């Protein structure tokens, strides 16, 4: 290596691991190089982080992503083997049968609309 360090060398060497989120450390170096694309960017003057789909998909096979979090909720049939058992309120039937469901009123007439 040249003993004379040109002024550009030093800052350029540091920009790569830091990316644009200087306040967030621990970004592993192997994530700093996506082939053919930015991994993320911030809003101009803002702090929002965007992740490109390709980058997200690459992370899917990372070692960390292969096993569930150690302290993930244990729900038989979902996060562990067994029958799915979502608790019911005391196992009682609904007390207000006249009301539509909360999570998805599929019988809702509004579904007649087209996209």
């Amino acid at each position, binding site marked *: 290596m040249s003993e004379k360090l040109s002024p550009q060398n030093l800052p350029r060497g540091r920009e790569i691991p830091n990316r644009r989120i200087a306040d967030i450390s621990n970004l592993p170096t192997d994530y700093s190089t996506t082939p053919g694309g930015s991994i993320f960017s911030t809003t101009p003057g803002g702090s929002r982080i965007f992740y490109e789909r390709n980058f997200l998909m690459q992370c899917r096979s990372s070692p960390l*992503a292969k096993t569930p979090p150690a302290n993930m909720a244990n729900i038989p049939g979902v996060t562990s083997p067994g029958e799915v058992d979502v608790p019911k*309120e005391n196992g009682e039937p609904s007390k207000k049968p006249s009301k539509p469901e909360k999570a998805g009123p599929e019988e809702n007439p509004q579904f007649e609309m087209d996209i």
Partner: protein
Amino acid sequence: MAAPSVSKLETPENTATPSPQLGRSAINEIHTSEQSGVPLNTPWTFYLDKSTPGTSAAEYAACLRKLYTVSTVQGFWSVYNNIPTVNKLGSRYSYHLMRHERRPVWEDPYNCNGGNWRMKCHKWDTQKVWQELLLAAIGEHLSDFLAEGDEISGISVSMRERDDIVTIWNTKSQLSEKSDILVKVKELVPDVNFTAAFYKAFQTHQAFEGHSK
């Protein structure tokens, strides 16, 4: 504090003071692999529920199961990769991915002035739609299609007998008309034909139990 010898450093019992080394090791054990991943813009929480027609808000909330709150990309995958895909869920089950730890409950403070876009899709498309929506949500690509001042609160997928339902939750129903979110969805999954798509403010649901603010 005097510099301890190397051997002492490795033995927690020899810590003479409320020492940083003990704290660090404890923290490292407590915190999961989450900590070493790429940070998400905000944390997101996975929920599961099984809806029953005619439940009250309280009954619904009681049946809601929080799976995990993720704050990194790897953490997101570690949950998603290790829970059943939507096509393995039984009818009337729903997954939700909500920003921070907001609950998918209409009446909660973050949601009560909001609503959601509801899209019905064929069963063979549900898994694809759900995954693309998840990636767009955590990648923060949905937010740009909202009006200024609005926010994506979460996304849900609900399994039904026939067509399944995917929903995108926002926080300000008044701003929904200024949103291009359905255009974005079409862009995300151009091959998917939704059999229905519309927006509904939570307060306009007959079953809404909260108060307008």
